[in-house]
């Protein structure tokens, strides 16, 4: 017999950073929320990546709108939780190695400026002022003061702790096995391996496994895994001030190619290690360490920061980004199933985009007009396979 619980307003499936943000904003809006995860908090992709909160890598469009809203929300959250989440408004520096590359950056920054992204061109001779250890061989760069950073697992855990202070419940170690629906299709709640949770709304924050959860609710959502590795160095003093990456990164992020792509994004952390990430390739859920990916990340890092050639790599993170074919997440009510909301598929930007996602979902749940147009994020935009 499954345990039953008092009825809720909403069940959030997934205790990654996105589920945590959904729970936080829903609880803040006064809803009775329960979060369920089959593992621990941050046991999915949230615990396997970096915490870059970037606008610098996004071209104007729905994702950038989401990122700008999210960065504002991160700043608000940081008032109380900043230290606990290791929030650092450190800014980003994008560098180019050739004059042509710098010209491309210039054009990109000009487009971004139109929608509110701040970027300052840094000529080659001034790059060392920003980053003293940067290779002198760069052609120039752009400084993006809005880029920031959190420690993702801490961010998820502290958002959830706040949600619980506001009355939310957290259930870990239970898998959602069914999404219960009325004969007319509307959501009634979920069943885990141990209990039944009744609620008129279910939020799919199952990350890379969001497609499976959608399947439990009877709808198609093609979330795919895109593997990434991050190199983690020995603890170091602050040797890198910003998040620094080379211009090709933007092209890699936007690419639909399944092949291995690497363009190192490098940043320090309050804990000491420097993170060098990340690679991208579509190989299913294959966990095999890719020697080629490690090699390329290391080589690129040493090229950007020659000083890194002298440090030691202690471990790697490896994770599977939740990937949708058009690189946009699925956010909001699913028109096909009343009561089903999606908050998944954020690919390599889920940490950055989590607060905005949570806020928009909470707005929809409470019948408010969402702050952003959610049409580009609708889950039914993909034709069934």
């Amino acid at each position: 017999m499954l345990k039953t619980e008092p009825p809720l307003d909403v069940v959030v499936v997934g205790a990654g950073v996105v589920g945590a943000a959904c729970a936080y904003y829903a609880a803040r809006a006064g809803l009775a929320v329960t979060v369920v995860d089959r593992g621990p908090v941050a046991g999915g992709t949230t615990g396997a990546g970096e915490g870059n909160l970037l606008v610098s890598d996004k071209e104007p469009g729905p994702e950038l709108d989401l990122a700008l809203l999210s960065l504002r929300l991160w700043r608000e959250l940081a008032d109380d939780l900043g230290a606990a989440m290791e929030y650092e408004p450190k800014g980003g520096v994008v560098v180019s190695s050739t004059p042509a590359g710098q010209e491309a950056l210039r054009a990109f920054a000009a487009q971004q400026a139109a929608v509110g992204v701040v970027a300052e061109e840094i000529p080659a001779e001034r790059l060392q002022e920003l980053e003293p250890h940067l290779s002198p061989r760069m052609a120039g760069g752009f400084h993006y003061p809005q880029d920031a950073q959190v420690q993702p697992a801490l961010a998820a855990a502290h958002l959830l702790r706040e949600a619980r202070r506001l009355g939310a419940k957290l259930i870990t170690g239970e898998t959602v096995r069914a999404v219960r629906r009325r004969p007319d299709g509307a959501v009634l709640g979920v069943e885990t391996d141990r209990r039944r949770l009744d609620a008129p709304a279910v939020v799919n924050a199952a990350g890379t496994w969001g497609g499976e959860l959608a399947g439990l609710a009877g709808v198609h959502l093609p979330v795919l895994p895109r593997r990434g590795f991050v190199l983690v160095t020995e603890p170091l003093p602050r040797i890198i001030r910003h998040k620094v990456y080379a211009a090709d990164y933007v092209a890699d992020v936007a690419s639909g190619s399944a092949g291995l792509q690497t363009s190192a994004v490098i940043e320090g952390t309050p804990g000491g290690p420097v993170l060098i990430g990340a690679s991208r390739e579509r190989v299913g859920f294959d966990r095999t360490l890719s020697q080629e990916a490690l090699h390329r990340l290391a080589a690129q890092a040493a090229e950007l920061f020659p000083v890194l050639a002298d440090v030691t790599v202690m471990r790697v993170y490896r994770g599977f980004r939740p990937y949708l074919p058009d690189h946009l997440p699925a956010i909001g009510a699913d028109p096909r199933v009343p009561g089903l909301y999606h908050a998944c598929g954020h690919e390599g930007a889920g940490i950055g985009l989590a607060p905005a996602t949570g806020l928009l979902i909470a707005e929809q749940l409470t019948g408010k007009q969402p702050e952003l147009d959610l049409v580009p994020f609708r889950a039914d935009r993909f034709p069934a396979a």
Partner: protein
Amino acid sequence: MPTSPSDVPRYDLAVIGAGPAGLAAAVTAADLGLRCALLDAGRQTGGQYYRHPAPGLGAARPDRLHHGWSAYTGLADRLAAHERAGRVGFLGGHQVWALERTGDGYAVHVTLGPEAADRATVPAAAVLLATGAYERQLPFPGWTLPGVVTAGGAQAMLKAGLVLPGRRIVVAGSGPLLLAAASSLVTAGAEVPAVVEATAYLGYARRPGVLAAVPAKLVEGAGHGSALLRHRVRLRLRSAVVEAHGTDRVTAVTVARLDADWRPVPGTERRIDCDALAVGHGLLPQIELATELGAATRTGPDGAVALQVDARMLTTVPGLWSAGETNGVGGADLAIAEGELAAHAVADRAPRPALVRRRARLRAFAELMAAAHRPGPGWTGWLRPDTDVCRCEEVPVARIREAVEELGAGDPRTVKLLTRAGMGWCQGRMCGPAVAWLAGSGEPGPDRRPFACPVPLSQLAAEQRAAAEG
């Protein structure tokens, strides 16, 4: 032999670890016609048990620190003969950081130390993992003080460097290594005021039949016993060091009696002055190279996770074999037997039935001993909120409890992400068991460490030289 492993055609077998298991495997495999590489992070063969002084120290009687030294010299002589004949290449100073499966074999990725500019890769058709074990530690207040060392560490520093951490050394923890360490320490001139053992050794006594089947073990136990008697070393059973005292180094320890669950019994504390403490709670198989490839594991009766192997010492990963402590802790004799068995299997030759029986007997004894020394759940009773659990990142008990009770961590990985416990240089080797206990998940799961050791970034960045195929 060519000097650079990358220049040689691929080996039939790469044996990782030149302790009793790996040495026995390499020479046996070579006897049976295989071309082997024998790799070890250290510069000498011998592993933990047969650790011995470097030639420069001119030790005339290294056997005085070992039981069964002749077994080692026998293996070492056979190795030397095979090396001269080009059948085995001993690659000392080669620390393996990852195994990669290539089409029909393996690339063994090696770091040659911090100075090396290149990365090295040894190609082999099959790999035998004989990487041994490291000691299991359970933290207690004061365990990070200088002068507090592991029992095996004291043993290793003595056997290789002929040095002691102090003059008056308390030996504590649980397991047979304590007796071995205490016996070496007193024989080498230290005073050992007490050997403090958490269990009552009852596990062995209950099954005398198994003990009787392994006479060598008894002789060895008696050997330790007589040295300890001769030096009037007091064995305190059902007790533990619950605190080490001192400011910049250990000056005394507090010992308390334990109940059957290993909970310290209030009012039984007594202080023992000392200038060093050698402590350990048995051993943990060092298996991350295999678990990274998805090899299946089993949890032994001591709670330690070991590789799952079949009767031929084959893991669940094709072409990946394992012998010795990696299959569950059992000592040097068992390691040798398993190394020989594995070598036969790799060479596709039937082993002598006596060898198969011997291995079974020794393994049974090992399992029995392991069960006797499994930590009891009450050990956390000697922790204090400010006791560092993670030595590297200096994470105290209180932070771990906060992560578990308030932040939703229920397993070691999440505790690590939320507190940094286990993220430091040792990658959780020292704090792993304790973090798992405190996370409420009981014993740790299989080690997951993509890198078996730190690797200089320059070596990752260096081009991977194409290794010639044989």
